[in-house]
């Protein structure tokens, strides 16, 4: 389905990515919102619609997003919404909103202080409340089950996983917004103990606190305000069934669907920023997206270098946008995910020209 209007990213800001911030979520958002509107050359007052992505159980408080409205500058009151999902889905809501013709500029944001509590204690709460949560079945365990399925299916080896771990952290050295960077020796990595066999520590993302904000605009506004708008030529998402034992964990059908709906077949993609928080997810997603081997994957380092949960996906969008605006690329892809074993997937395709 064709969008009514071309929507472009005209500015963004990513917070420092750290293991444990001493700032509140609202403070993090204040900074990135200011940064994003500055980057776009506008003020908060010119933003017609705002949408935030964050999660009460990650923040440790009911209605946690209410404090965050303070960072938006909602006075006079703003047309504003919130999703209990990654900021990439907040972008989706803002993207839809701008199609309606009466708003020109929107701000999407994601905030995640993942250092708040032990993820292995929080994440069982998002699983089936009867069959899975009471087992304390956590995200890393599910990821490990998927990794095992891929290894048993010959789609990836532990060595390849370690290579991805090393490559992403090495690439992340060039990224001022990365948390875990450095040169790691693959053999040394493989000599480490398992955390959740077949996953070792390097196969897991770090715990990261961070936030991100993105400004989007309709065509006329984007061309007026921005020298190099980055056009969103496709933005779609798709869900799979929940219970991992009922799915084929060796494929990511919803990623393929979302990519197709986003128009991946309309042209080659040069860079892909994927929310592959676990190393084995990268080859799985690359396959599901049908990416050719010359596509550069996660040159930012990806979530393995910084994983501010609830913001990670939207950060991927900014990285894919940066490749076009600042690195001369023409067509890039960003991906976000939610749920055990990549249950829900979102694909965003960005282009240099509308």
């Amino acid at each position, binding site marked *: 389905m064709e969008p009514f209007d071309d929507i472009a990213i005209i500015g963004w800001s990513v917070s420092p990515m750290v293991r444990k911030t001493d700032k509140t979520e609202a403070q993090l958002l204040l900074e990135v919102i200011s940064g994003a509107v500055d980057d776009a050359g506008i003020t908060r007052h010119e933003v017609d619609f705002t949408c935030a992505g964050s999660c009460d159980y990650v923040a440790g408080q009911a209605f946690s997003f209410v404090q965050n409205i303070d960072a938006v500058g909602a006075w006079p009151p703003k047309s504003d919404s919130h999703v209990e*999902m990654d900021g990439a889905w907040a972008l989706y809501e803002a993207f839809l909103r701008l199609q309606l013709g*009466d708003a020109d500029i929107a701000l999407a944001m994601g905030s995640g202080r993942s250092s708040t509590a032990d993820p292995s204690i929080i994440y069982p709460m998002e699983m089936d409340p009867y069959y899975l*949560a009471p087992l304390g079945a956590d995200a890393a365990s599910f990821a490990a089950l998927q990794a095992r399925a891929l290894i048993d299916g010959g789609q990836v080896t532990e060595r390849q996983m370690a290579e991805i771990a090393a490559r992403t952290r090495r690439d992340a050295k060039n990224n001022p917004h990365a948390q875990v960077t450095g040169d790691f020796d693959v053999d040394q990595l493989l000599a480490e103990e398992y955390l959740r066999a077949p996953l070792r520590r390097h196969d897991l993302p770090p715990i990261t606190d961070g936030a991100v904000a993105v400004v989007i605009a309709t065509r006329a506004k984007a061309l007026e305000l921005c020298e190099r708008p980055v056009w969103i030529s496709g933005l779609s998402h798709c869900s799979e069934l929940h219970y991992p034992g009922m799915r084929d964990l060796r494929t990511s059908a919803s990623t393929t669907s979302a990519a197709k709906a986003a128009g991946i077949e309309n042209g080659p993609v040069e860079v892909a920023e994927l929310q592959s928080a676990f190393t084995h997810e990268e080859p799985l997603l690359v396959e599901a997206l049908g990416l050719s081997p010359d596509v550069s994957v996660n040159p930012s380092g990806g979530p393995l270098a910084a994983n501010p949960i609830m913001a990670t996906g939207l950060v991927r969008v900014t990285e894919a946008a940066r490749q076009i605006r600042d690195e001369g690329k023409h067509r890039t892809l960003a991906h976000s995910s939610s*749920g055990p074993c990549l249950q829900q997937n979102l694909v965003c395709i960005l282009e240099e020209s509308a």
Partner: protein
Amino acid sequence: MSTQPCAIVGIGQTQHKSRRWDVSLGGLVREAASRALEDANMDWKDIDAVVLGKAPDLFEGVMKPELYLTDALGAKGKPMFRVHTAGSVGGTTGIVAASHIESGRHKRVLAVAYQKQSEGNAQFALGSGKGASIGAGGAFAPYMRSYIHRSGAPADIGPMVAVKDRRNAFKNPYAHLKIEGISIESVKASPMMWDPVHFLESCPSSDGACAVVVTDQAGGEAAAKAGRPPAWILGTAMRSEPSQFPGRDPVRPQAAADCAADVYKQAGITRPLDDIDCAELYVPFSWYEPMWLEGHNIAALGEGWKMVERGDTEIGGAFPVNMSGGVLSSNPIGASGLLRFAEAALQVRGMAGEHQVEGAKVALAQAYGAAAQYFSMWVVGSSLNPLG
């Protein structure tokens, strides 16, 4: 607002009760969703996107429940979305679903909102697990006290609203509270909960869900031809303002006025009292009926309570409010906003049964949340141009 009209062609809700212990969480949402599909004469495979809304996950202790609810909502292979804007979330769910259609990107969207409060404890959840939670009533008591002072409203106005809404509830088969023999006297005799609000002037804690199917112009027209008249969305609006700052008026919030002005403009409403036939407003404590009548500029300042006193807001009155029994009769918090939006749609479709306002062509729905700082509203009509 946009050039792609949106029609509501299916509405469903659960039997709201304090404890729906006969169903799982999935079963609760499914009951509403399958009723909405049936009303829309659609099957699960006809839906191409799902929007889920609910208030804090601390109520049920299930984080990001859209993941587990994928199966219950037939959402495999489809985009699924979860919104959360505090008490206004039910309304936001409807609005976000509508934007899926209005943007031209989807054709048939299922919106579902729910809360299964019996699994946890509302006061616990509202206070994030800390002791001495003051709850919603405790937080709003100062606002209501201020309204009573500013408006000079007599003390019986609150009880009058409570009686009206509970009597209306007898005309709504889905409503939670059915209080036989409720009267102004029995309301005033009931224990004081949060001065000035008595127990019988406060909303219940309910398990419940509401679902709505929205579609595009072609879908709406097809439904009309098939003898299932849709409700047409004439306008939607959302507004948020910060919780607390010197100069903020939480009794008559700016966001409430701005949200209403926006939605009226979209719908071509210039005189709300005359142009709108009836309203479903989020009234969890009795005094909020006159407060929102004024806050959304339906009644002039200080005139809201007079509308109540005159009986204007009864089903047969000049401006019926909460014909369904409202939040005072059923309050599964996450669903309550969508229930308001759905009930408004039922009215203009002529499908509100015993609580139907005769000849309703234009209806207003509103939901609010947190410190009366989040607002979502929509106006629906029996046609795309009911005001001529």
